[in-house]
């Protein structure tokens, strides 16, 4: 390790010691029967608890940023520190030793996906105005991509942006918009040339979520909470300098975001849900229910453990390659598929062990509480690109298999058959 890196580590350590408490127990260790009896993926906190967590996330991000750890790899002209990726990974590893507020409301979408997109495709006024504010925790960003009639086929989106002098006027409906209710800005994909084929008539914009005409309505999930939303855009005016990339060049911009999304979802290996289905935790589940001698349960545990540990190895190796300066490869898609599968199978395994105590709350620790995760796992196979789309991507980009033949990439968008056509408010 270089002297510079040693100095960086010492500085990060000093910041963390002064601003956070070190964890008593390493985060991988299991404490069965202790602590809050909750296993969450999506939260279903009441709004006041949710608001408090968001405020804590913003405050921690501000402190990180002011100390030089908020945007370690970012360019200095926009408030970044200009260090290589490895410094980021080193800081994350150090911070994991401390109890700090969960900042995923900022990092997962805003800093993980939209920040890099603005940096790559934004005009100067947008970069100057939003990048430092995002990385300082002041601005939360959401992703205005999916629509009722444009899910997996995102490029068939219908929200329009029409030019009016130095401004654009945006009208349409977005859906599945996570954290829109906390967001100050959104990255919107809009149809700007309906006479061109679908991929060639889209433009990307940064929209001020407090602008007149933006209406955010919460959407309740099957797991009970409401972390995502419908967003209605009614003649929302956006200055042209808030456009990302070229006019009609929005698909390329969107690909930058989506690439970062897959890396972001698959990389959640250390999250609380993944910990709940980790081999030590599932072993503790078996033990607590007196099933450690059950051959069928042991076999299932071993199968789950092998896949999970191998997925960990896959992620570790991806991190090592990133440290060595490589770009994220197809392993991000593999990692995302495995993450969904591991979490789903782990949750069902724990449910099976809990038995009837899963379907009725007997008050016993670590039984009924699995429901939250169990009810969240179906989303993992859909969000950030459905499994079916991920498999198409792997087969086409990695294995070179031909695309499904179709007319949809050459025909003008307005001539294509679309879901819900001719009806108001079609379904996805």
């Amino acid at each position, binding site marked *: 390790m270089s002297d510079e890196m040693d100095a960086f580590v010492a500085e990060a350590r000093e910041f963390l010691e002064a601003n956070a408490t070190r964890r008593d127990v390493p985060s991988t260790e299991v404490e069965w029967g202790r602590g809050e009896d909750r296993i969450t993926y999506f939260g279903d906190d009441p709004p006041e608890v949710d608001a408090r967590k968001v405020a804590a996330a913003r405050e921690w991000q501000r402190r990180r940023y002011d100390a030089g750890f908020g945007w370690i790899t970012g360019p200095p002209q926009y408030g970044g520190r200009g260090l290589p990726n490895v410094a980021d990974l080193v800081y994350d590893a150090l911070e994991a030793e401390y109890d700090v507020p969960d900042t995923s409301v900022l990092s997962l979408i805003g800093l993980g996906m939209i920040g890099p997109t603005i940096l790559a495709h934004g005009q100067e006024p947008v970069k100057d105005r939003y990048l430092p504010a995002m990385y300082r925790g002041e601005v939360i960003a959401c992703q205005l991509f999916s629509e009722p009639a444009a899910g997996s086929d995102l490029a068939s989106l219908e929200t329009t942006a029409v030019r009016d002098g130095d401004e654009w006027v945006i009208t349409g409906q977005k859906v599945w918009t996570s954290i829109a209710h906390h967001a100050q800005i959104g990255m919107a994909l809009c149809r700007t040339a309906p006479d061109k084929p679908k991929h060639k008539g889209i433009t990307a914009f940064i929209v001020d979520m407090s602008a007149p005409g933006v209406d955010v309505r919460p959407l309740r999930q099957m797991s009970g909470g409401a972390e995502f939303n419908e967003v209605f855009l009614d003649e929302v005016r956006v200055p042209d300098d808030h456009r990302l990339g070229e006019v009609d060049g929005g698909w390329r911009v969107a690909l930058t975001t989506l690439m970062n999304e897959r890396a972001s979802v698959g990389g959640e290996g250390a999250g609380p849900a993944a910990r709940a289905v980790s081999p030590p935790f599932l072993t503790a589940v078996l033990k607590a229910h007196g099933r450690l001698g059950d051959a069928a349960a042991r076999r299932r545990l071993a199968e789950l453990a*092998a896949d999970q*540990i191998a997925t960990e190895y896959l992620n570790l190796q991806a991190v090592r390659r990133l440290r060595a300066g490589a770009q994220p490869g197809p392993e991000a898609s593999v990692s995302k598929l495995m993450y969904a599968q591991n979490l789903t199978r782990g949750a069902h395994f724990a449910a099976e062990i809990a038995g009837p105590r899963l379907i009725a709350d007997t008050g016993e620790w670590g039984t009924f509480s699995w429901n939250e995760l169990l009810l969240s796992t179906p989303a993992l196979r859909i969000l950030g690109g459905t499994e079916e789309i991920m*498999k198409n991507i792997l087969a086409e980009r990695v*294995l070179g298999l031909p695309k499904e033949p179709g007319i949809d990439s050459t025909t003008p968008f307005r001539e294509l058959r679309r879901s819900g056509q001719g009806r108001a408010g079609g379904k996805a």
Partner: protein
Amino acid sequence: MSETTTTAELAELRTAVRDFLSAKSGEEQVRQVMESERGYDEAVWAQMAEQLGLQALALPAEHGGDGYGFVELAVVLEEMGRALLPSPFLSTIVLAGSALVAAGDAGAQAAHLPGIATGKTTATLAVAEADGAWDTASLATTAIRGDKGWTLRGEKCFVLDGATADLILVVARTDEGPTLFSVGGDAPGLTRTPLRTLDATRRLARLDLADVPAVAVGEPGAAAVVVDRVLDLAMTALAAEQVGGAKACLEASASYARERVQFGRPIGSFQAVKHQCADMLVRLQLADAAAREAADAVAGVDGAPDPGVAAAVAHVVCSEAYMFVAAENIQVHGGIGFTWEHPAHLYYRRAKSSQLLFGGPAVYYERLLSRMGV
């Protein structure tokens, strides 16, 4: 200990081995050799040593080896698995070579390792008996100490390349506990019976030992530790081979799916076929990661996980992945994949024989749990 080898050097090694094997062990040669009595091509074995030094690669430098480790060896094994090379490499280098190193008997090392390193000697390790278990606690084969030294009595089964090996390391029971012995392939009292095998590219034999003279290797009673270490290395080596074989299957499937036309389109454009190939890729990537991590772990690379866990994980994940990919490969090919002429069945056979070589699912899931402390 492994020296530091750069990514570029590993890639160079891979290219050299792949070029060699595509010239010497193409499908036609594999088919010829697998029909032969000996089960491997002695000329290719000699060339592997002379031209590429593969046998010496990971053996200790003080005994004629090059002193590299499992990270480098894994590259070689992956290519051998890809080419389905019929060869006593796994038995000689990984089983016997590692057992000699792990036993730490300087005399035995000096006697046998130089011959192995030059490709002159082939060798194997005989642990399993009639039940096929790699378990040193329940051995029936016994060693008796007499005036002229040790003699072995019993029966060993599923011995990899046991009918052809020049040197056989045998684990037998003594009063002190399980002990490692060396036996000459032509020793008096030794009857070697080649067994019919599912996978003709991987030969197994039964050994009947009727008072066979033997030399103890290492301290009497010390073989359990040796076998544990060898098993970790063997599972790791096998994992690399399995990944190589699975890669060959997936490449064959993807290539066929791109070219085979039905209903007026390449079949790979149908999502049913496309997703089947993507599922194969996912399992393969996972297996590849597990095999690499295990190689790092047994080689003692900085920051690598516990070798016992990593090797057990790799053995489970790579065994399952290879079997899955080899079976799906036949499905993607349809009828042609079920013919004798098509190589798909050779991989299918190798996948199954590798999965079951050290006990199979009945053993490897429990082994993983025990390595995890469950």
